[in-house]
Structure formats: C-alpha cells, structure tokens
C-alpha cells in the first residue's frame, strides 16, 4: 500500500512541472483558453493514474520476475557442468543470449513512449509508416543490441569497439537511407530507454557481470544500455531501406511487364 502511494506521488512529481509549464505559458503568454479544457484535464488525470498503475504493476510483476530469471539464468547451478579446471566457453551462456533477445524484443513492444511516438509517426506520414511495423523494427534493434551487449560481457571485449562500429554503421546508413526516415530513426534510439526494458536488462547485465570473474557490474551493466540505444537507429533505417528497395523493385517489374503487354496487344 505504501509503495502504491509512493508511486502515485513520484509520478505526480514527474507530471506537475510539465503541467505548470504548459498552463503557465498557455495563460501567461499565449493568453487564450485551452480548447475542450475538461477533456484535456481528464486526459492529464488518465495519464497520471495510468502511468502510476503501470509502474506499480511493473514493480509487482514484471521486474521481480525478470530479475529472478536473469539471476537464475546466469547462476552456476543452471549453467552446464564444468570439467575440473576447465574454462567456460561463451557458448555455455546460450540461454542467456536467447533470453536477452526475446525479453528485449517483447518489452520494447510494450514500451509506452514508443507506442506514443509510433502513433504520431503513423499519423503524420499519412499511412506510409505502419506504427506496428515501426515498433517491430525498433524492438528487433533493441533485442540485437542487448544480445550483443550480453555477448560482449561474456567475452570481455572493450565496449568502445562495439560503440565505434555501431556509430560507423549509423553514419554509413544515414548516407544511404531515405531522408524522411532519418529523424524518426534517431529519435527511436532515445525512446526505448524509458520504463520497462532498462531494469530487466540492468538485472541481466548485473547477473552476468557478477557471475563471470573479472567483470565489473558497474561498468558492464551500463554498456548494454548504451548499445541498446544505438541499434534501434540502425534497425529503423534498415527497415526503411528494405521498404524502399522493395518498392523500387516492384516498380521495375511493372515497367518491364508493360512493354510485353504492348507487344501482345500488337
């Protein structure tokens, strides 16, 4: 009960400054009444109650479950038996990678701020961007980033190699992909790091880093999040590139078929 009230209070603290800024500028600077004020107020109340309930539910169900599974998957009892004095091979952590990928993809699909951005993107693109496809693209990127992050912790390779490589890929893709997708792609990197995914990923990183000798939980836990921010950018641009390629091929086919049709007519 106490944590319930605490969550409602924290969320209120999160929303109040924004409400103050919006209403302050609306009435102090713009000096025009808000259209359909009662509806807007109901909306803000729904955001407050909804976000609080969402967080309470996460704390009660998804986070403990995710953390429990992350520690169980990385614990010595679960990993395959080791022969005397043998070193662990990176393949021993097979289920960790599968878990990282699946949990990364599925939690990103349920991320509220990503849903919000994809609704907006679908609206203004006039239907060329399918909100669900966008979310799937971001989820796949997120999943890939997290899986790579887990693998990196196991291998112990320096984070900045991966970051540099990902940056390079982002820059190369930026030059090649359709211009209209670039801002949305860059935004989707920041969107994913808000509510659900981060605590579960952090638990996985922490579990991995503390079960492998020579890894520091502090440095390695954060590395996963840094990678997870970059890969959605790559996957969203990739999605646009593939979509563009498919349309171009489609058009080419049509053009090739046209003269044939003409000759038949003759």
């Amino acid at each position, binding site marked *: 009960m106490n944590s319930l009230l605490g969550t409602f209070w*924290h969320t209120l*603290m*999160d*929303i*109040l*400054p*924004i409400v*103050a800024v919006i209403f302050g*500028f*609306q009435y102090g*600077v*713009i000096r025009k009444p*808000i*259209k359909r004020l009662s509806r*807007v107020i*109901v*909306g*803000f109340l*729904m*955001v407050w*109650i*909804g*976000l*609080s*309930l*969402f*967080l*309470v*539910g996460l704390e*009660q*169900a*998804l986070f*403990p*479950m995710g953390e*429990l*599974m992350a520690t*169980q998957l990385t614990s010595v009892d679960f990993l395959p038996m080791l022969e005397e004095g043998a070193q662990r091979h990176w393949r021993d952590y097979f*289920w960790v990678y599968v878990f990282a990928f*699946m949990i990364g*993809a*599925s*939690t990103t*699909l*349920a991320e509220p701020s990503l*849903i*919000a*951005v994809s609704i*907006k993107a679908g609206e*203004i693109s006039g239907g060329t961007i399918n909100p669900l496809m966008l979310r799937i693209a971001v989820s796949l990127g997120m999943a890939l980033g997290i899986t790579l992050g887990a693998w990196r912790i196991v291998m112990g390779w320096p984070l900045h190699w991966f970051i540099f490589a990902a940056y390079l890929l*982002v820059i190369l893709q930026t030059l090649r992909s359709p*211009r209209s997708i670039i*801002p*949305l792609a*860059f*935004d989707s990197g*920041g969107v994913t790091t808000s509510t659900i995914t981060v605590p579960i990923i952090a638990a996985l990183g922490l579990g991995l880093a503390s079960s492998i000798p020579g890894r520091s939980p*502090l440095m390695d836990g*954060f590395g996963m*999040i840094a990678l997870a*921010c970059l890969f959605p950018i790559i996957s969203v641009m990739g999605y646009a590139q593939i979509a563009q390629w498919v349309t171009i091929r489609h058009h080419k086919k049509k053009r090739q078929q046209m003269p044939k049709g003409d000759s038949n007519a003759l």
Partner: protein
Amino acid sequence: MEIVVSLVRQMRESLRDLAPVVLVMAFFQLAVLRQPLPSTLALADLLTGLICVVIGLTLFIKGLEFGLFPVGESLARAFVTKGSLVWLLLFSFALGFGSTIAEPALIAVANQAANVVAEGGLINQTDAARQVFASSLRMVVAVSVGSAVVLGVLRIFKGWPLHLMIISGYVIVLLLTLLVPPEIVGIAYDSGGVTTSTITVPLVTALGVGLASSIKGRSPMLDGFGLIAFASVMPIIFVLLFSLMGLPFLPGVAL
C-alpha cells in the same frame, strides 16, 4: 459512452502489446529454467501486477490522446502564429528543464553517481561533498535537456540538417570520452538515457510535430522528429564537460 468504447478498444491493444512479454517469461519459466517460484513471488501478486500494467497502459495512451498531444500541438501552433521566437525558446527550455529536474530516475542516478565518484576519489568522501555533487549533476543534466530542446526547436525553425548535428554530437562525445576520468564515463552515458522519460517523450514529440506542421516549408516527417535525439545526446556532452571543467570548482568537493 464514446470514451468507454475507445477505452475497451485500447485495452485490447494493450493486452496484445503485453502478450509477448508474458509469453517469453512463461516459456523460460516452464521450459528452460523449470524451477518453482520463490515464496516471495506469489502467483496472485504476479497476476494483479499484470492487470495493473494492462489498465495503466490503456489509461496512459488514451490520456495522451485526450490531453498531452492536443495541448502540445495547439501550443506549438499558437507560438508560431504569435510569431515570437524568444517566447517559444523560453518555453522549450522550461519544458526540457522542468520535466528533467524533478525526474525520480535522475534523482536516483545522481545519488548513485555521487557514491561512485566518491569511491573513485574524484570528490571528498563526505556526505556534504556527495550532496553537492549529486545536486549539481541534476542541475547540469536538467540544463542540458533544456538546451537540447531549444537547439532542436531552433533547428526546426532554420531547417538545419539533423543528421549532421547528431553525428557531430557523437564525435564530440567520443573526443570528450578520451579526456575525462573513466569513472565519469558510465555516469555520463547513463544520464543520456535517464532524461527521456515516459511523459517527456510524447510531449516533446507533439511539440516538434506541431511546430513543423505549422511553419511554412517544413515537413512534419523531416523536421518534426529529432528533438528526442538531441535530448539523449546533449546530457552526455554536458556531463562530460562538467567533469572536465565544473568538477574542480565545486565548493567543498575538490580534493
């Protein structure tokens, strides 16, 4: 009545959105781990938690459509018709700063960061020094998000190319990373992710899209997005700079 119908429809979507998480967890629990749940995790608690998540997500998304989205866009349009760039930039700064300074996640990260930095020997091992560090870090991050929104809004007005700005941001981050003490790097990168909270993202998106669709010659797709991208790179740069230039001058902090 109309609200109820749309809520029920949204509820179905929320269920669909959450189904994959539940399936993944059930699969791992039943097929891979095959260990009983510990006594601290009752099945009933898990179920009520999941119900809370579904109802919460539903209310949140519908609430955005009723409140935050229309207000954000109509404010953006009003600023454009008013024609005052100064007020708009002030508003942008207040929005970025205000939504970040009180963010609970940032408060938690700042306190944790103070401990890390104290253990790393960058500041004194006293409570006072930790507190000064934590509150200045929060301030730096909040100012950085405010400036990020200002820069993003300026970009929408001027039509500057986003990718060049973001890529130069990356380059600055990389260069600064080489110069700062290693303890601060993790904190700096983390602060970029902390700032983009669940409420800030939709509001800032609505602001950007609203601006881009009411300014002549701007397309919402090309120019409306990108504010979040700034808000996640700028804090990294500011925190790295702060550790280089601000840290030694904090009262009672420098060794």
